[in-house]
């Protein structure tokens, strides 16, 4: 006897699905073949293009003769050519002194091929990546015609685009420094190491002024963001900014940020300030206050340091211990001091601080680490 079999609608559905998924899979394979072919052609073309334009841009460094007629850049080749131009414009450390010689040559080349025109076109019609690339190149060219667009784009929602636009505007007109600092103050999505690159291009005197102005109109979060970059200002205005924030702010995080920024610049005259904040109740303020105190610590401060070396927060204990270690330096008296410390946690913290001092003193720079790696043939990864 034959029982019921799968219903016709189900079979129909399955067949239709197989058909549909087969078509989709086949379409994907066709798309792949198309893309691969296109990519292969584009890549081969780009390799030739890169090779050709590398040798042209290289002449700015080598002093070799340029070809009599520069090759025409096709519409689809601009991305590669502008990216190459930007790379060549960014001087490596060994070429840094040659900026006055190399940059004008590169700039003349760029204007000759119409790079500025295409980059300006992209500022309005390109996608985000093209706009960023154009902004980088136009900033390197100091192209004034791009200034308005750059300022407009610096208000864009996209973090990368707005930062690249601000950088471009800054390169074109140093008067935009104030604007940049206001943006740094207001944008918490800008990658700080990239902001650092930008701020390092600003003359210190301009930066000092702009930072002072920006911090004046900042809310607490903005102040904290700006304080991260105080280290790129001249020491005296930097100290003044930190102290002003300390006078005006009551939020713990802001106070801690101001003290943290003050720490590398701290001197004897900041000792009273450090001691004042060493009595603060918040661990994050204590941590930063101890950083300042470490720079100007005196034997009279031992009691405060010992008290903090027994604090309930581990990191406060460690920072206090670091200040104690800084106080005794290499004198060897630290062992006697530790022997007198009754609190076990304080003793542990001092031992840790001593170990870390040793670790930091022997820390190998990046190039040594790389060399160590390359020294081992099996480690050439």
């Amino acid at each position, binding site marked *: 006897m*034959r*029982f*019921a*079999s*799968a219903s016709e609608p*189900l*079979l129909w*559905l*399955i*067949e239709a*699905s*197989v058909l549909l*998924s087969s078509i989709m*899979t086949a379409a*994907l*394979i066709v*798309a*792949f073949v198309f*893309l*691969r072919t296109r*990519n292969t052609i584009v*890549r081969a073309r780009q390799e030739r293009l890169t090779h050709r334009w590398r040798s042209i841009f290289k002449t700015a460094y080598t002093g070799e003769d340029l070809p009599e007629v520069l090759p025409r850049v096709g519409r689809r080749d601009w991305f590669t050519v502008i*990216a190459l131009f930007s790379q060549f414009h960014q001087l490596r450390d060994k070429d840094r002194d040659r900026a006055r010689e190399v940059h004008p040559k590169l700039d003349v080349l760029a204007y000759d091929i119409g790079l500025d025109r295409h980059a300006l076109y992209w500022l309005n019609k390109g*996608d*985000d*990546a*093209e706009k*960023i*690339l154009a902004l*980088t190149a136009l900033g390197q060219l100091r192209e004034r015609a791009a200034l308005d667009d750059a300022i407009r784009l610096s208000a864009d929602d996209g*973090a990368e685009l707005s930062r690249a636009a601000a950088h471009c505007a800054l390169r074109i007109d140093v008067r935009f420094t104030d604007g940049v600092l206001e943006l740094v103050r207001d944008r*918490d*999505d800008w*990658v*700080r*190491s*990239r902001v*650092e*690159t930008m701020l390092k291009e600003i003359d210190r005197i301009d930066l000092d002024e702009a930072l002072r102005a920006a911090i004046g109109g900042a809310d607490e979060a903005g102040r904290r963001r700006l304080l*991260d970059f105080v280290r790129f200002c001249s020491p005296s205005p930097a100290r003044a900014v930190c102290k002003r924030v300390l006078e005006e702010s009551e939020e713990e995080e802001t106070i801690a940020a101001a003290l943290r920024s003050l720490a590398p610049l701290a001197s004897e005259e900041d000792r009273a300030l450090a001691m004042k904040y060493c009595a603060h109740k918040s661990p994050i303020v204590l941590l930063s206050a101890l950083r300042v105190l470490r720079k100007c610590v005196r034997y009279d401060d031992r009691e405060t340091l010992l008290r903090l070396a027994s604090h309930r927060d581990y990191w406060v204990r460690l920072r206090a211990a670091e200040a104690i270690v800084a106080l005794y330096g290499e004198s060897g008296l630290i062992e006697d001091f530790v022997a007198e410390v009754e609190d076990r946690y304080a003793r542990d*913290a001092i*031992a*840790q601080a*001593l*170990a870390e001092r*040793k*670790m930091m*003193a022997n*820390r*190998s720079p*990046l190039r040594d*680490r*790389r060399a*160590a*790696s*390359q020294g*081992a043939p*099996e*480690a050439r*990864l």
Partner: protein
Amino acid sequence: MSVDFHATMGAVVVFIETGLFFYFLVINGYYAFTGSVALFRLPGFVKMHLADPVRRSNSTLDRPVTMLVPAFNEREIIVTSVRSMLALEYVNFEIVVINDGSTDDTLERLHEAFDLEPYEGIYRVELPTEEVREVYQSRLHPELRVIDKANGGKGDALNAGINLSRYPLLFTADADSYYHRQTLQWMVEPFQRDRRTVVVGGAVAVGNASTPVDDKPFSPSLPKNMMQLFQVLEYLRAFLATRMGFAPFNALGIVSGACGLWRRDIIIACEGFRTDTIWEDMEMTLRVHNYCINTGQPYRIAFSPFPVCWTDVPASPKVLYNQRKGWHRHLSECVMIHRKLLFGNGGVFSWVTMPYLVFFEWLAPVVVIGGVIFSLLMAALGYLDWNTQWWLLGLVFMLAMFGSIISILLDEISFTAYRLSQVWVLFAAALLENFGYRQFVMVANLSGLLAWIFRRPIRGNTKYPGLFVAPWVPKRRD
């Protein structure tokens, strides 16, 4: 038996068969959705990188990172691996290798290569672990420290490493993986872009057959071993299609243990890595979701699609079987520990990722293997016709191929890692994996599920909670 019974039985069988059909459709709908999201996002991502690359930065503003490298019997690879990590281009990082009770000479090799001496600092116990015998520091590279401890599993080793770590970001690495020189720069950036970021997962690729080149760590080539070749496809699907698809919705279900960057304070708040589970990465990812959702903390788990980590994958069926068995057992542990997240208040994560994990990953071996047995049996009994079965089988194969080809396409439009000849090999593999490999993996998964249900002890721990584990909820802090 009456005709009525057979008619009823037939209707039930057709109903179940229809359910199976829709199950396969929905599971592949998920893949199609995440694949489409990735197709939409990846080209822009790559172009953006070309326009604005991560530069070799020596900025002291970059947040310092502690790399945690658990090692258990890694004598062959440990020295090479640590050397490659020391060569990473990042301004401020330290490496903590945790020798998790190796029974071979892993520790001796580290001693020999890096001139270790006892560490004079304090080992502070924030997270409880198995006994720590000694902590060493390298005389050659003071930023390298080694913990020698009794065996307690990877989670326990990581916890020991966290106890010794000094920095606010923790990178979990595998001793048998290799990393791109700019791995840390890549992975730290999302933390700077979005303050809510608590974890960043990196993309992992198969590295077995790849040739070391100086600045590009690997020029990708395909393994000759078929088992490994199929895994290349799996990694492409998992990282390019699935994770890239889930990440924009803050719905990443797993951050790979071989390449994850975690905020230290979050791991501590989550009470560290669990030691009573067979693995640790997925559980910690779900725990971070769980913690942030339940405490109302705004958070983001980001994903960096650039392949920065290359790992060796199993070449033998036995090793692969055990690996997958372990993975599925871990998945079982995770869905049970975090069951309250399913259809909970976690938004997309609770309503999309968790159902995906539960219904289409965790229960997949039961549904698929059960479905095949059911269909064959019912067809043999005459309740289903063979024609339908062949069509259903064809559909499953076709949808599987579809998923694989999307991943190959994603690779093509993003990184174009493989040469054309290699891509054809991958296409062939996408077809061939349906004949044995997928079924093999499914059986391994089922075995993992059964091992979990029957609470086979791990690492001699007979108190393995298995099915009866309590759901994890974050402790309220004052």
